[in-house]
């Protein structure tokens, strides 16, 4: 019977702490220190998954992050490698891609058709007979294949993002990483050591050597005592970016639900991420029980698991002998199939001592067993069939060049090691240990120490550091390998990529059909995709393709390595920016008052704005009309604090504004405001607003709410880059000042009641007049401006005092019937007046489109002046501003409706669209502003507005956009 048994002693598990968890709903047990993989193996579960496409039985291949087969849904999170998942009380793991279970999977029927399911099958088969056939088939294909299923419920894990900084970041805590961290730590530098595993030590954890364990513990003990060193476990360095910035994903402790994505900016980085063993490619190499030799050794030394009685080791290099020897010492009968002709004498001698039979020049011809391995058929010089519980294979080692390649530095192939090595490092980055192809432990320690010293030198540290003691082991033996990549050929069950069910035959098919580049090979066969990103498969496939093309592996190259190194959940990336924190909420200084006085808020960009008040109605449709009537007939107060406000100061402030706005500002008198429009440098309208002259050298600019930030940036850019000679400073006052609009025929009366000591008479505060007064101990700015078309004022003051001032105005003007009005009414009133706003200022319209061309100065230069006269921007049929009146009483007019001439077919993009629409309390009908081809040249014409979403069409008449008070009598009252 295939499988493992748990030894009574040894390993890094705590036999005193039994942990209960569930696997596919059944209770299962393990010990503290077990992974889900080791606990399942200990309980006799060798078959734990079904493959991606053919639903073939699969077991664990590895003991690390490279695991392609043993993926589980843990809690709600799919595709969790069992080899990385620490068990804890209450853990609930479910198998994936199998129904009803991996042992008995009905979808295994796919395997019968596997001979025709090779690379390209879907592309060739499901593209016809019709053009959109693939869209029809795709859902069925995706349902039949695949990995885990994402949960539809909310992520229960709390994801934080934090920022870290250090002098030296060491990636990996094997012998090289520990030595590097010790060197940098002893120098007093700020060191972060990031380890993917839940224990520090890397390969040392699986070495089974007391001397190495002693060295490991000593090193960790010293590092833990250093206050300048942070030791991170469960920390996957997922991406490397410019400026030595890395993203580290820190998994939760077992049973915890708080994970952190730490963005670390390191002055130097020492890469010591080790290497990954690669499989061999032979027939049925995917059967449960066929594992990487290093994984078998890891399960032995970390989890006290050994094959029940017999193991076969097949290898093309020396490293697998350590597994064979350790298993034999643990009482397992071991046979070695040696692909090379002659392993070195010391290995032969040790094997003989342990009673291990070695078959040189021999590989695996086939594996016998369906749901799990039962026998191994050796082929080559020796054709023998051997009963066994586990087949441990080693195709050599691939340094983990993923991270070192993120910056665009391609790895280089080393023929002697038969492996890709880092192709170089950016400034301040160094490599050490197995990552650099140094597979000896002592050499790795020395190299780690040297990398630490290199980092010190790079940082300019001249501190003398005590050397790192070498572990008490004999000299390293040289790593020897004869690469055997497998042959791309007819064998349909010789798997190259376990996770994506890519076989040696698929590689041959891709070559035969012209997909020669490794990037094409990847996309045609899906090789190297999925959650493991080809960690165990890429190199074998590349070598096979190189062989088929008659090129070297280096010439064939690799696919591009991109972050993340391991699968990263969307939740980890989002961090705390979910739900309430998805984006920041911006609140007016009057927000709390609104909230306490029956307002309904509406989101406008980041702002939370007062939409309408319940005194006026329960629905927006009901409320805004009443609020409009209040302003047209009496007096209302609206919060306009969201307007952009900018302090423009300096001796050249007037000149600056004169260059900025299309109309003149140089001669604006102190105490007066002026409406201004500014263009982008491409001649298109950027924004509008009023700017007031406070003194000879100081102006108070207001912008639209939507463009406040953009205008501020634009001003700073102009001053810093275009006109540094101008003596002007700008400062945002949007947060400093709050404001309210006091509007309506009774507004002057209300203003006088509010500020009895100020002269706000028609002459005292004329139209577009500005006056600063002191009231209640603070500065209050009174401006006679109107957005509504009525006699109106804006009252601004420092934001801290806006609520108090607002309450004061409401209180003293209460006899006049004053009430607050909201954004909906504010926006509707301006439509009646024909004022353009954000919906019309959409960065596509010119001054002339908006009917503002006449206000542009002819003589003076201003930004955008030249380009606004481009031929296309002067075309007579441009979509230009018009007023629109609904001709069909009882029907509704909708914003966004597409405009057509009466004789047009209602099809396509029409001749324009409605930008803003409202019910007019003055005209008692729906009116709108819109952009229409040719604009007011069509005044008086009847046209059609179509709203396809509701299949509505209504008749309109084109009119002047100024629906009320065209002469401005109300403004100037």
């Amino acid at each position, binding site marked *: 019977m295939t499988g493992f048994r748990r030894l009574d002693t040894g390993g890094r598990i705590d036999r005193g702490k039994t942990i209960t968890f569930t696997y596919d709903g059944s209770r299962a047990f393990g010990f503290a220190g077990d992974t889900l993989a080791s606990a399942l193996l200990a309980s006799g579960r060798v078959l734990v998954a079904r493959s991606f496409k053919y639903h073939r039985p699969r077991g664990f291949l590895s003991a690390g992050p490279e695991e392609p087969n043993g993926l589980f849904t843990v809690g709600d999170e799919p595709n969790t490698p069992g080899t990385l998942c620490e068990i804890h009380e209450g853990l609930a793991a479910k198998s994936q891609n199998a129904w009803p279970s991996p042992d008995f999977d009905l979808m295994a029927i796919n395997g019968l058709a596997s001979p025709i399911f090779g690379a390209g099958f879907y592309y060739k088969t499901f593209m016809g007979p019709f053009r959109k056939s693939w869209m029809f088939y795709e859902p069925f294909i995706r349902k039949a294949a695949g990995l885990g299923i994402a949960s539809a419920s909310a992520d229960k894990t709390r994801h*934080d993002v*934090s920022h870290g900084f250090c002098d030296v970041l060491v990636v990996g805590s094997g012998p090289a990483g520990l030595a590097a961290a010790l060197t940098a730590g002893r120098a007093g530098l700020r060191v972060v050591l990031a380890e993917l595993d839940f224990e520090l030590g890397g390969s040392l954890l699986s070495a089974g050597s007391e001397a190495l364990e002693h060295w490991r513990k000593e090193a960790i003990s010293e590092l833990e005592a250093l206050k300048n060193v942070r030791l991170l476990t469960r920390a996957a360095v997922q991406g490397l970016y410019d400026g030595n910035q890395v993203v580290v994903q820190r998994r939760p402790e077992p049973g915890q639900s708080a994970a952190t994505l730490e963005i670390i900016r390191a002055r130097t980085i020492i890469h010591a991420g080790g290497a990954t063993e690669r499989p061999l490619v032979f027939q049925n190499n995917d059967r449960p029980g066929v594992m990487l030799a290093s994984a078998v050794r890891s399960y032995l030394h970390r989890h006290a698991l050994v094959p029940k009685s017999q193991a076969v080791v097949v290898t093309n290099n020396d490293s697998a002998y350590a597994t064979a020897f350790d298993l034999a010492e643990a009482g397992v009968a071991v046979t070695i199939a040696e692909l090379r002709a002659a392993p070195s004498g010391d290995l032969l001698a040790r094997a003989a001592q342990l009673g291990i039979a070695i078959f040189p020049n021999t590989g695996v011809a086939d594996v016998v067993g369906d749901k799990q391995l039962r026998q191994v058929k050796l082929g080559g010089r020796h054709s023998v069939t051997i009963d066994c519980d586990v087949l441990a294979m080693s195709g050599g080692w691939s340094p983990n060049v993923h991270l070192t390649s993120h910056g665009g530095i391609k790895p280089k192939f080393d023929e002697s090691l038969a492996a890709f090595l880092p192709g170089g490092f950016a400034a301040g980055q160094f490599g050490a240990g197995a990552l650099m192809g140094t597979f000896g432990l002592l050499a790795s320690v020395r190299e780690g120490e040297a990398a630490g010293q290199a980092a010190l030198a790079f940082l300019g540290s001249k501190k003398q550091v005590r050397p790192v003691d070498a572990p008490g082991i004999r000299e390293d033996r040289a790593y020897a390998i004869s690469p055997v990549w497998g042959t791309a050929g007819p064998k349909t069950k010789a798997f190259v990529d376990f996770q994506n069910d890519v076989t040696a035959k698929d590689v041959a098919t891709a070559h035969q059909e012209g997909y020669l580049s490794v990037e094409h090979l990847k996309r045609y066969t899906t090789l190297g995709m999925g959650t493991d990103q080809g960690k165990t498969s890429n190199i074998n496939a590349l070598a096979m393709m190189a062989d088929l093309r008659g090129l070297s592996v280096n010439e064939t190259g690799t696919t591009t390595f991109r972050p993340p190194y391991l699968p990263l959940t969307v939740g980890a990336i989002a961090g705390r920016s979910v739900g309430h924190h998805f984006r*920041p909420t911006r*609140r007016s*200084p009057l927000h*709390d008052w609104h909230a306490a006085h029956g307002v309904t808020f509406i989101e406008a960009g980041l702002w939370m704005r007062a939409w309408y008040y319940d005194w006026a109605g329960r629905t927006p449709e009901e409320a805004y009309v009443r609020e409009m009537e209040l302003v047209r007939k009496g007096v209302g107060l609206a919060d306009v604090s969201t307007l952009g406000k900018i302090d423009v*100061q300096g001796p050249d402030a007037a000149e600056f504004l004169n260059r900025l706005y299309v109309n003149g500002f140089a001669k604006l008198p102190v105490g007066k405001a002026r409406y201004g429009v500014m263009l982008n440098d491409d001649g298109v309208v950027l924004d509008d607003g009023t700017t007031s002259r406070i003194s000879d050298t100081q102006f108070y600019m207001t912008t639209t709410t939507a463009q406040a930030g953009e205008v501020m940036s634009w001003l700073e850019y102009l001053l810093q880059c275009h006109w540094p000679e101008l003596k002007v400073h700008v400062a945002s006052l949007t*947060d400093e000042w709050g404001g309210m609009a006091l509007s309506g025929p009774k507004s002057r009366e209300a203003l006088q009641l509010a500020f009895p000591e100020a002269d706000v008479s028609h002459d005292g505060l004329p139209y577009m007049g500005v006056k600063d007064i002191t009231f209640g101990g603070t500065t209050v700015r009174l401006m006679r401006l109107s957005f509504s078309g009525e006699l109106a004022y804006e009252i601004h003051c420092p934001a801290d*005092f806006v*609520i108090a001032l607002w309450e004061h105005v409401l209180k003293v003007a209460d006899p006049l019937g004053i009430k607050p009005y909201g954004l909906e009414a504010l926006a509707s009133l301006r439509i009646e007046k024909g004022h353009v706003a954000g919906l019309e200022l959409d960065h596509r319209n010119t001054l002339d489109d908006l009917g503002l061309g006449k206000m542009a100065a002819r003589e003076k230069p201003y930004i955008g002046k030249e380009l606004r006269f481009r031929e296309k921007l002067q075309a007579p049929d441009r979509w230009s501003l018009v007023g629109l009146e609904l001709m069909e009483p009882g029907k509704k007019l909708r914003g966004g409706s597409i405009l057509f001439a009466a004789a047009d077919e209602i099809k396509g993009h029409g001749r324009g669209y409605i930008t803003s629409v409202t019910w007019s309390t003055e005209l008692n009908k729906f009116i709108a502003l819109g952009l229409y081809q040719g604009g007011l040249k069509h005044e008086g014409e009847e046209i059609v507005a179509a709203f396809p979403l509701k299949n509505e069409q209504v008749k309109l008449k084109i009119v002047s956009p100024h629906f009320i008070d065209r002469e401005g009598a109300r403004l100037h009252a």
Partner: protein
Amino acid sequence: MLEARSALTTARPLAGEGLAINEAGDFLLTQLAWFDKSDEKTLKDLLGALPARVGQTAAAEAGTLLRTGPQQLWLLQEGRTAALPLLPSSTLVTPLSSSRSRIAVAGPKARDVLARCAAIDFHASAFKPGSFAMTGIHHTPALIHCIGEDSFHVFAMRTFGLAVWEWLTDAATGL
């Protein structure tokens, strides 16, 4: 007198083990700007030594000076009744007292909380008392001023004040 209202009226102070987050209101903030070296020298003669570089502060009789730009300072005065010192005519003055919500983050865990909020090196050896950083919190501009070993003032834009407060206090969860 008009009553001043904070943007953080509804914010509940956080007092936990090793961490306290409170509003630190009652301050006056004024931006001072100038154009050339001679203007700067005139200002220096009146206020005393100015912080040399952006990110540095200096204590002056009038209050704390924060260098926020090559030709720009913040004058921070405690309380609401402090008077502005006499300033040269070449200095451009912009009151900003209402523009910021000031949030005090203090305690041994304060640096960890801030590290969850801004991409600044808050290690004690790098971000020392007297220094400040102009950065971003929760996508909004913020100035973080280290006023003690484990004590900080976060100046958030007033209109984002409550959002930043909620972001900061949420960041403290689990620490």
